């Protein structure tokens, strides 16, 4: 088990971004890529249930959710408010532990790992995007993008690889079109810019899975579409597995597959 983290990481897979290539530029949909359905199961939820306790009352949020996400799949989870979609996303991303059921990543169970292992997973394997961007207000855009790399490295490790890390962060921030704002604090950025910055941060440590919690929920249609385009491009070009939670069918329609959550259970659309 102790070799788990390296084991679930396939050979070198640090995404290489073409210098200057912007994901903002709409690219025609190329359907020449291999069919997702044939790929291996990347992320699997087995009979997940979760109950929150509010005072004396138990509120069941998830009641046995089964879900499979293939590698390179862009999955949208939709459902009404309170249907448990965010909770499901948190459970998939090991931010929270299920009351029952299991979460598997590439066939290995990850929900019961010790916390240090789960911390490492969140840092390296998952990139997370939130509705309210959740950037650190004390840091500049560039530093926010760097933060996963900062978290994973010690002081000396960071100083040794400083140049490489900075290069990674710069190319990511350039990719999302924020190169001119890298020195700005989050409060000086617009909503769309903050979300682009958050996407760049989610990609910094080269994750395989992107978990997006209502990434467009706080943005207008045009900006939301822009964000969505970036996600789609990442999905196609980098073969990134994306799980996106939304309540907006129009947004969900851009995904490869849609899963509907109703009262804590999956209802295939």
């Amino acid at each position, binding site marked *: 088990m102790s070799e788990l983290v390296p084991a679930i990481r396939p050979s070198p897979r640090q995404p290489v971004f073409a210098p200057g290539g912007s994901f903002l530029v709409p690219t025609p949909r190329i359907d020449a890529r291999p069919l997702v359905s044939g790929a291996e199961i990347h992320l699997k939820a087995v009979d997940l249930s979760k109950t929150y306790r509010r005072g004396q009352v138990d509120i069941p949020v998830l009641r046995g959710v089964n879900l499979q996400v293939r590698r390179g799949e862009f999955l949208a989870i939709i459902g009404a408010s309170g249907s448990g979609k965010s909770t499901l996303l*948190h459970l998939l991303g090991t*931010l*929270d532990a299920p009351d029952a059921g299991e979460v598997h990543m590439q066939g290995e169970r990850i929900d019961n790992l010790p916390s240090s292992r789960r911390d490492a997973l*969140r840092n390296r394997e998952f990139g997370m995007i939130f509705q309210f961007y959740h950037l650190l207000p*004390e*840091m500049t855009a560039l530093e926010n993008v760097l933060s*996963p790399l900062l*978290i*994973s490295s010690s002081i000396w490790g960071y100083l040794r690889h400083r140049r490489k890390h900075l290069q990674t962060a710069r190319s990511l921030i350039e990719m999302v079109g924020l190169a001119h704002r890298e020195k700005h604090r989050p409060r000086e950025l617009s909503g769309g810019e903050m979300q682009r910055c958050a996407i760049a941060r989610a990609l910094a440590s080269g994750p395989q899975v992107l978990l997006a919690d209502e990434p467009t929920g706080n943005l207008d249609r045009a900006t939301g579409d822009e964000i969505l385009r970036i996600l789609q491009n990442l999905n196609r070009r980098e073969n990134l597995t994306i799980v996106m939670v939304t309540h907006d069918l129009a947004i969900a329609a851009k995904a490869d597959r849609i899963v509907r959550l109703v009262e804590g259970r999956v209802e295939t659309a």
Partner: protein
Amino acid sequence: MYKLLLCWRYLRTRYIALASIVSVTLGVATMIVVNSVMQGFAHEMQDRIHNILSDVVVESRSMEGFYDPQGHMDEIRRLGGDKIEGLTATVVVPAMLSFQANGGLVTRPVQLIGIDEETYSQVGDFGKFLQHPANRERLSFALRAGGYDVRDHQAGPEAHPRPQMGEGGWPHRRRRVEFDRISARLAAAESTRREDLAQRTPAVDTSVASHRELDPNPREDASGATQQPSDAEKPAGDPPSDDIFAKHQKPAEPFDALREQQTGVVLGIALASFRNHEGEDRFVLLPGDDVKLMFPGAGMSYDLDGGVMTPKVSYDWFTVVDFYESKMSEYDSSFVFVPLRKLQELRGMINPSSGTIDPATGQADPATQVGYATAIQVKLKPGSNLNQFRDQLRAAFPLNQYNISTWRDKQGPLLAAVSMETAILNVLLFMIIAVAGFGILAIFLMIVVEKTRDIGILKSLGASASGVMGIFLAYGLSLGIVGAGAGLGIGLLFVAYINEIADVLALITGHEVFDPSIYYFMKIPTIVEPLTVGWIVAGALAIAVLASVLPALRAALLHPVEALRYE
């Protein structure tokens, strides 16, 4: 790495937290200042006491002393071997010092010490404390022609000069004696005239005139050289006058005060001077003036009338030859040094049946006669174990007759009081820093609540609980470093400029913060001990870190999902 970056950012953006550590800063600064000043005082005091008292003292428990001090010294030297650096025998007795100043009689209780000029300077810094450069080299009880220090050689250049000292010595003695003789002649002539007048015209009210004439202050009727209060003194060996000194004159041998001196005496400087509020020393006696000393004799005399034993009182006149200034006011205002042999003679401490008999006269040679002494002072080589040597001596001498102590034993209560004071002050001031710790705790809890969402973000990015805890501990530590560092700087600056600050405070409040006339130093002494400063800073840092443990734990235990939802 992110811990450092975040804690640096928090440090630069949360000024409220900086406000919470102001009390740490103040506490550290105060502790440094207090410790430096206390250390300075204690060191100054110990240094002086040590130099005055020599290392080990063997004292007789009786006022009569012990017989044959040379034999005792030989024994001590045999016991101590090469550890001994110097030895000297002394006679210490309580005495009364009297002299006339400003026309009035001044009497003071003193500690009269008979010293051996040859060896006394070997056991302590006695020589250093004298005011004549030649006496500092080698003490002589003969009055010098002049050349006493006008500047205090132990103080810095900022000390006030003592212009009066420049007049001390033979010229001062001659001028004073001549002046006294003239005024005595005038007084005699005046009283003859009044007697004549009284015979011729009885019952005339002359109260106003006699008042003026009886005024003992000769300044009234003398001219010139009367600016010094010491000039007003009555000398020894003058024609009889009706003060108490006259009764003890020995008319047998004519003593020419113009050319001769009495036995020399070194007075503690505070006996002969006072310090005014500007810190200037005003002298009422100068080298060349005569003083009288009264002290108990060694034995008892049989009183024929009452049939009881009564102690004898001895007295004699002495001529001031120098002043002793150890800068310890207790000693400077009580010590009086005279030649050992003379004191032994006066007190009857010489065995008349000892000594080699001169065949020519049939008399014993006084130089070889064996006397008594009351104390032997021992100076050991640097680094010797004083307590061990003291115990060795205690084993060798009968303790019912001898009191054997080190200088520390003798000043034990004083030294203990100073260290006690320092300890209590340190405890109190450290409490202040501890109180500051609770301020930090409260502010930190606020910051953790404010940063709840950021903590959730960090956890979602993979930061571990210990990492989050580390941010806040490092934040506490860096606040502590800032606070203690500022305190260190302020404290050291304060210590460096403490005398200037005292001056400014005196100027503002209008009353002296540090009164040199009380302490006998011109400046506030300070010693910055790196170890003490290190402990203070380390203590402040520890408190800052301890105060951040609880908030940091709280941050570490936050649930990431709930933290992310926190609005």
